[in-house]
């Protein structure tokens, strides 16, 4: 299946992947509304890490593992793999116990404290490419076939 990969040398640390992710997962899909006017601002599913004032930066995201540790740790069954292999979080079913946060070795499950629900990348089911990939101005994120243990 296709996954999102991150090229550290190409990352300029602009955080546009996070903005695009928040926008895509908002109600309005409009960045200004999503950031300022919606009741609960979505949490970005990708996380840009930086060091030395931005000299080192790269975006981390869910690997959609073949054997996901988050799924194995989930006590409510909110995390399931769909037919395509995408690891999905059913936020209605999630009880906010953070077991997935404890288990994911990629640090790729976020806590939405306002909603008390865990969040994770869904590879943007309504789009051809994930929003973060399309938003990256220097092609530091690529969406391509690959496997993941």
């Amino acid at each position, binding site marked *: 299946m296709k996954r999102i990969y991150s090229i*550290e040398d190409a990352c300029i640390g602009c955080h546009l992947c996070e903005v695009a992710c928040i926008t895509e997962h908002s109600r309005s899909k409009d960045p200004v509304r999503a950031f300022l006017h919606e009741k609960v601002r979505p949490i970005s599913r990708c996380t840009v890490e930086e060091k030395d004032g931005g000299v080192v930066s790269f975006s981390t*995201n869910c690997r959609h593992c073949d054997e996901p540790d988050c799924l*194995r740790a989930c006590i409510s069954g909110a995390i399931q793999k769909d037919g395509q292999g995408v690891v999905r979080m059913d936020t*209605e079913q999630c009880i906010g116990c953070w077991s997935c946060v404890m288990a994911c*070795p990629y640090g790729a499950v976020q806590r939405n404290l306002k909603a008390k629900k865990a969040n994770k990348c869904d590879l943007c089911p309504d789009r051809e490419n994930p929003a973060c990939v399309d938003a990256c101005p220097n092609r530091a994120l690529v969406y391509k076939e690959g496997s993941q*243990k």
Partner: protein
Amino acid sequence: MNYVIIGNSVAAIGAIRGIRKVDGEGHITVLSRENHTAYGRPLISYLLGGMVEEKRMPYLPADFYEKNKVNLLLGSEVVAVESPASRVKLASGETIPYDKLLIATGGDPFVPPIEGMAGKEKVFTFTTWDDAAKLKGLAKDINRVVVIGGGLIGLKAAEGLNQIDKQVTIVELADRILSAAFDRTAGRIVAKKMKANGIEVLTEDTVVRIDGEGSEITGVTLKSGDFIPCDTVIVAIGVRPAASFLKGSGVEVNRGVVVADNMETTVPGIFAAGDVAEARDFFSGNKNPMPIWPDAYIQGDVAGITMAGSSQEYIGGLAMNSIELFKVPTISMGITNPEAGDRYEVLTYQDLENYQYRKIVLENGLLVGAVMVSNVDRAGIFAGLIRDKVAVAPFKEHLLAPDFGFVHLPREIRSTLFAPQGKAA
């Protein structure tokens, strides 16, 4: 191939998926003494407290059993395993033959004999959906509850009861609550939070008698001599591997069912996984029962794959718990109570006023344990560092930072994890 699985919780589900990865056709029969399809067992305290509705209890999509061609027999308690004949005997007298058998029966609550307990109506354990439903059904007749045991189950039961406005006292024999999962500081933070929410926590004491008339409870008498008035008692001292039905089967049972690294028991063709099993510990290599949800899933997966004729290596049980009590999230993993001396190096950060705490345990430059309170974000990165035995000494000063991440790790590691040319490609 005819697979029979005794038990229907997370280890069984891991095993069903494990079998189906290898064998799409074999017959799978699941026997459960309960009357529910698989449910999120740890959710029972949320159900009791009204934080989760009944319809959210099922752990699996409704079509799971059908899709995986599983014959699920509920209300079917196994009373014996007749290994020479390769069949199991049900309480109804019926027998069911197997080619490969998985024991995934989990744990049974341990209830010690306590003076005055016999004949009392409102003495409960708290490990099943039915236990929670019973307590919920009786809620209007319950006012004051004594919970015996300050472990995970006891504390979650206490929280659930507190959420429905019951007055709760926890009585714990040790000098602190959650002594198994937490270190002293984390235990103290949680105890403080519980007390602030009106739960009484008594340590270094125990219930020696349940007092009352006929079937009614009027209170409990403690070893210290104190009397605590109550109308309900919950016994949450601990669980024991549910393996008594294996008597005479030839399967070796120590504290749990002894299994090799492929989850096979001492009787070929019979496997065990989850809380009932005694598998290898990640660090010591010793065999221990490890009642940990994700570990039960992983053991089930290994057992299922092996039963279906393929092979999978169990890397050893790594204890980990994510517990939120009264809105204070905590995550602990690995060795959290290291022995004193120079074998372990311990790093801590604490701001107890704000319920913030982080502790890192190192051994020979490797991460072996972590405790996080309040800020638990990305805790799983630590789990990965433990499992992969990553040398963390060069960047250990970053481990306590709230924004610790892959950026602090050697570049090769993050390339392997995230870059197109890494192990992912």
